[in-house]
């Protein structure tokens, strides 16, 4: 054991490398518990509902959504931004682990990356679907065509296309490459021919050679380094979709950093939710220790402070500007008007409740951690709702004000994305080691 006065043990208990392999492959090698089947059934039902909503949107059209002339972006874009925000945590953990050499992230990295992949897939569905004719989605790619048209490279909407595509590819690459040695472990432990063949295919003939490991470590560190600015840029670009417009409440320079911090905040909250569930379900508290959850709670505490500050800055600048439209949006419509319920839910859930994490007792209480993480995600959904709908529904001209409510199809598409996420995560848990086995073995001896 490498004794350290500043590093808490990353793996608890006296475990050999073989014990680590056995414990971390157990969820994949044993029959799943009843809760897994219940989860998959629920996920499948949600997926079916989403499938119906998708079908309605494609065949009948976007008239089935609750969008109006003024509120051209509704639940579709709220949910897009929400899912993209959640998807930031996985890459953030990978960056902590690979770039900042935070070894404690080793046990969370894999599941967080899986969460990112599925969240970004869910997010990408919304811009595709909201085009109205998603079968013409290839129009947004710059290629020589018979229409003799090129795309507008000046538009953040196009930057979003490149950003989301690059982010999805990067997330999948980081996630998959990170698991190659573990897939090799699964291949060598597999007892039936089909499992051996499938794990063998995806493990790319990995033989544990240090020469290959050298190149592999170099590649993963490189990808981690590339992912760092990408993570910052993706949500910044999503914020710029709003910032570059002229609407009161949107046209503000604070949006890019505000969205980025909000994304990390909601992503970490979702990771906390998933880690709490997983460590209880698979009895892996020796790998995802109380200290890991404590560290995530601390990040949430600081994130909450920044978000709270951003809310104050927005309101202050709206008042300080003297622009009556900005003052109306922030001081009337959001704080006391039609959107006040959503606004105060947002403020309480994001800026106030997470402050309990200043207390160690709260950071070490599983129920508090779980409840606050759920509330943060609810709060972040309402934040996107407030930003989008309040500025669209009540903008410059009162005669064009409308009010927005989602239809069953809007709700269906959102529920469908939850189905994708739940089914995806459950399949991941079932077939792939949820914790990076080779990394845990490498860092097993760190700590005191």
């Amino acid at each position: 054991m490498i004794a350290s006065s500043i590093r808490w043990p990353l793996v608890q208990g006296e475990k050999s490398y073989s014990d680590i392999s056995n414990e971390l492959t157990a969820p994949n090698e044993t029959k799943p518990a009843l809760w897994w089947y219940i989860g998959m059934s629920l996920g499948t039902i949600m997926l079916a509902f989403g499938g119906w909503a998708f079908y309605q949107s494609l065949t009948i059209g976007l008239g089935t959504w609750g969008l109006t002339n003024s509120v051209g972006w509704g639940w579709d874009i709220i949910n897009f931004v929400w899912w993209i925000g959640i998807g930031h945590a996985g890459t953030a953990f990978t960056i902590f682990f690979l770039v900042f050499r935070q070894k404690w992230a080793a046990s969370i990295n894999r599941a967080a990356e899986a969460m990112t992949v599925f969240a970004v897939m869910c997010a990408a569905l919304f811009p595709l679907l909201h085009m109205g004719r998603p079968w013409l989605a290839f129009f947004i790619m710059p290629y020589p065509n018979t229409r003799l048209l090129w795309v507008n490279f000046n538009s953040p909407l196009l930057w979003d296309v490149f950003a989301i595509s690059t982010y999805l590819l990067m997330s999948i690459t980081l996630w998959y490459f990170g698991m190659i040695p573990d897939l090799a472990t699964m291949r060598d432990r597999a007892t039936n021919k089909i499992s051996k063949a499938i794990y063998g295919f995806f493990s790319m003939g990995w033989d544990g050679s240090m020469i290959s490991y050298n190149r592999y470590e170099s590649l993963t560190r490189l990808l981690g380094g590339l992912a760092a600015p990408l993570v910052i840029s993706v949500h910044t670009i999503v914020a710029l979709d709003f910032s570059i417009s002229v609407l009161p409440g949107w046209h503000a320079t604070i949006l890019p950093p505000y969205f980025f911090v909000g994304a990390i905040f909601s992503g970490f909250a979702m990771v906390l939710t998933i880690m709490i569930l997983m460590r209880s379900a698979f009895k892996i508290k020796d790998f995802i220790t109380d200290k890991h959850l404590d560290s995530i709670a601390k990040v949430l505490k600081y994130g909450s402070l920044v978000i709270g500050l951003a809310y104050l800055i927005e309101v202050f600048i709206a008042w300080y500007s003297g622009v009556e439209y900005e003052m109306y949006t922030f001081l009337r419509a959001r704080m006391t008007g039609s959107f006040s319920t959503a606004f105060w839910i947002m403020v309480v859930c994001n800026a106030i409740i997470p402050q309990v994490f200043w207390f160690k007792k709260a950071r070490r209480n599983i129920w508090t951690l779980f409840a606050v993480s759920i509330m943060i995600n609810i709060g972040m959904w309402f934040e996107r709702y407030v930003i989008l709908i309040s500025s669209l529904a009540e903008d410059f001209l009162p005669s064009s004000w409308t009010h927005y409510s989602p239809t069953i199809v809007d709700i269906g598409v959102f529920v469908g994305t939850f189905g994708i996420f739940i089914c995806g995560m459950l399949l991941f848990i079932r077939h792939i080691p949820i914790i990076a086995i080779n990394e845990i073995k490498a860092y097993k001896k760190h700590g005191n």
Partner: protein
Amino acid sequence: MAYKHIIATFKDENVLLKALTRLQENKVNLVDIYGPFANHDILKKFTKESRLPYMAVLYGLISMVSIFALMYYTSVIDYPISYGGKPIFSFPPMVVIMFLVTILGTTILSVLTFHGRAFIFPGKPAKIIDPKVTDDTFYLVVDQNYNPDEIKVWLKESGADEIMEKELNT
């Protein structure tokens, strides 16, 4: 004639490191070391620095220049459209796409380079030294065996768990 290598097994990477140091001091050439995880001290001692990051810089530059060329050609030469009176050639918005495509191009080309250089790809048959290599055991494979007895002594003194002579099928 089949060539037999000396293979030493280790359960502890620190013991392996001692053995590696001993063999390197005595200028013994090794085929490879196989193990369940990468230990940075072993990688530093045994392998050379990978040139992949240098290639990544090159790929990034190529990607950046290519996408700039595409944007310049499409927006300035082929079909210049005035969007709200903004300049036809405006570099700042191009920076965003250049940044993203640089990352995209570097990622794709670096991954392909890794596949080509390490010669691993989906579906490649695995030729592993032993199933325990992905579990809990390190295998050190010696290249030449012109003085096998001496090498075995050094390995034994360094703390190897097991020493064997075997043909390698990797």
